[in-house]
């Protein structure tokens, strides 16, 4: 197990190095840099001013030098300065992480707490009206784009209550703080919940047909014990995998949700930084996301062993 862990950690480092190279060079392939954008915004191009600014920002140096400057700084904890705000990159990124983390966490919680029970119910009640209704809900969840759902929620809130549930930076009560995140989390988590529900349902249906379930019923176990203790425990592995993958994909959904609900999180900030070609922000932020995703995958692998004692990681 220890050797496996060491190997996995080594592979993680190799993966992160590869990601850093890809991020760095992909970003340079995108046409235009911060200086082009600044001059585009000013509506003129002065070659001398442009050259001075490129020199000041260090983007006139060879790419390898620029890469080494960034990655060595990253390893030392020096994340550089934002080209746009001229503030330390870390100072720009750090305050936004808890906002997105809260939102993502709530969205995943919403996804799991709604998707898993409804998936179980749908499987247990297979072929009934309830099953059909739940399948329609899950299909809608998969079909509705989160930005559209978000706008629909905002429009309905304004029309019905005269209030708009967009981000409130200074909530006065715990409830207000929760509401600030709950509505957008539901909007972004709806799709994820639908997917979780469908995976749970199909996985449960497969398990419910197994012999040991019949045996459990024959031994007089209650429906709840059979469904949740015996069946769900074995059906949960694919669901965990999906939730793990969803956690990684969530950032995509969060970009639009943060935009629609005007949440100053990292996802929207990343898009803005890409628009400005603010390399220090984009590189460090994407690296941060990569680290989170790689660790999330690692955690999911470890969770397999916890949930299924048959799985043992050996050399």
């Amino acid at each position, binding site marked *: 197990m220890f050797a496996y862990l060491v190997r996995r950690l080594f592979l993680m480092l190799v993966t992160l190095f590869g990601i850093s190279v890809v991020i760095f060079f992909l970003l340079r392939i995108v046409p235009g840099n911060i200086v082009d954008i*600044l001059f*585009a915004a000013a509506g003129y191009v002065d070659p001398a001013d442009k050259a001075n*600014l490129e020199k000041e920002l260090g983007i006139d140096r060879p790419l390898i030098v620029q890469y080494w400057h960034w990655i060595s700084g990253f390893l030392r904890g020096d994340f550089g300065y*934002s080209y746009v*705000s001229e*503030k330390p990159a870390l100072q720009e990124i750090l305050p936004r992480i808890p906002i997105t983390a809260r939102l993502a966490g709530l969205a995943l919680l919403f996804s799991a707490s709604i998707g898993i029970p409804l998936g179980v119910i749908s499987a247990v009640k297979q072929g009934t009206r309830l099953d059909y209704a739940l399948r329609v809900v899950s299909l809608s969840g998969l079909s509705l784009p989160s930005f559209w759902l978000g706008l629909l929620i905002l429009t309905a809130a304004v029309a019905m209550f005269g209030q708009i549930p967009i981000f409130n930076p200074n909530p006065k009560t715990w409830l207000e703080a929760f509401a600030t995140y709950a509505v957008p989390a539901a909007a972004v988590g709806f799709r994820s919940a639908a997917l979780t529900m469908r995976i749970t349902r199909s996985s449960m249906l497969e398990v419910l047909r197994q012999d040991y379930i019949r045996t459990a019923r024959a031994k007089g176990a209650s429906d709840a014990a059979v469904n949740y203790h015996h069946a769900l425990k074995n059906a949960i592995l694919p669901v965990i995998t999906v939730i793990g993958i969803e956690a990684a994909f969530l950032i995509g959904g969060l970009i639009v949700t943060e935009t629609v609900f*005007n949440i100053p999180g990292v996802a929207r900030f990343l898009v803005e930084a890409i628009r400005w070609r603010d390399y220090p922000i984009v590189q460090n932020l994407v690296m941060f996301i990569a680290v989170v995703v790689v660790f999330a995958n690692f955690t999911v692998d470890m969770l397999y062993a916890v949930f299924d004692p048959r799985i043992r990681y050996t050399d």
Partner: protein
Amino acid sequence: MRSVRALAATAALSLLAFSTIAFAGGPKQGGILRMYHRDSPGNASIHEGATYSLNVPFMPVFNNLVIYKQDEAQNRMDNILPELAESWAWAGDNKTLTFKLRQGVKWHDGKPFTSADVKCTFDMLMGKAQQKFRQNPRKTWYEQVNDISTNGDFEVSFNLKRPQPSLLALLASGYTPVYPCHVSPGDMRTHPIGTGPFKFVEFKANESIKLTRNTDYWREGRPYLDGIEFTIIPNRSTAILAFVAGKFDMTFPTEVSIPLLKDVKSQAPNAVCVVEPNNVATNIIVNSSAPPFDNIDIRRAMALALDRKAFISIMFEGQGDVGGTLLPPPNGLWGMPKEMLETIPGYGPDVNANREQAKKLMQKAGYGPDKHLAVKISTRNIPVYRDPAVILIDQLKSIYIDGELDVVETANWFPKIARKDYMLGLNLTGNAVDDPDQSFYENYSCGSERNYTNYCNKEIEKLFDGQSQETDIAKRKKLVWDIDKKLQEDVARPIIFHARTGTCWQPYVKGVTVMSNSSYNGYRYEDVWMDK
């Protein structure tokens, strides 16, 4: 005793009623004006930017030497008021403009304002100072200024190479604040220090900008507001919904399109909304240095094919203006009158007849029903650019030109235009000041960095200088009209239309004036108050 009490109560009530009536009419002190901002400006330095996204939140931090009267919609020479200057005078054959400066004015950090600050600011703008701006988009505004001289702490003179009466108009723009000498350009980008009615508090990129009342403001009793808070909401639907829900006191100025305005009025019927021209002209840039548009006949045919009213009707439900380079009257000061405009090819009311003429020109150039001319129409990937480009493609079909839309990301737009890597382009040109000098020299003079088409006509250049030196407004107007007409006939940069846009605010917000011939100059906000 009872009667005394009754008398006292009556007197108290009368006093209360009187004070309420008296107070109801006049401005009230206090309150934070909440406004959404359409995007996150790159920095806080007005001199280093060329977008009104900077002027709106940061103009209240500063003062100019002179300023357009903030409670009049139209910017004119006769409504320019002294601000940091107390008075001004032209001397030396109109080649010296001297300002007497206001005394006792303090920067927001407590340091005194003097003539050295004025000299510093304009030396930097002219590129003559040790300290440099990272970007200096309006350097050309001061090309006729030889130098700036000071006489003591409270007098400053602009010494010109030749008379340029419009210099005063340029100095009155929201783009011309006076910066402090003792603060570096870098610090001004992140934490601006001004002398204006509001002090800078914080700017969180993509989140918010906060300003607070300058209690030491030199203008007594101003500003009325305790502060202004801008919440940055790039998503227009969210922003408008938030305004309708009452989360904001005001929309971002001139950011409400005509179709959206209808939505706002239906959902928030009490909102006060104003529609004004923003002095932004949608135009076509033509690469006349390469085939096929090096052929004047094809350029003229293209200009003849334009149905300007159709653009305005589709995009603005009829609320837009047809004009030449300069904003047409009544809002514009220098635009050609309608009768003159209609004599220019392509501006006549009979679109079909214009297009018949255009077809003949195309046939003369070798194109016709069996041989269409294929062109790429490049434009920025932003709706206000893309939408008219699509209409243009449709209109050009009628004269055997098959257009293909080539959308270009903003970062690549100016480099692409600068290296002449385009055939036709759909462009927007905003004018900060409704004055021919700003428009002509910036967009049409030989060698100007913003003359994207490289149009260069030495004869017209002389006319530019002629109108620029003319002090008689009526005479200058005639010269300007002739130049504008010539520019349109040369198809230098055919103007399609001048847009109109809306601004809305809640009924309790008072003292807001939306400028009708510029969207860059009306954001000092010291006269705005809230009747709450």
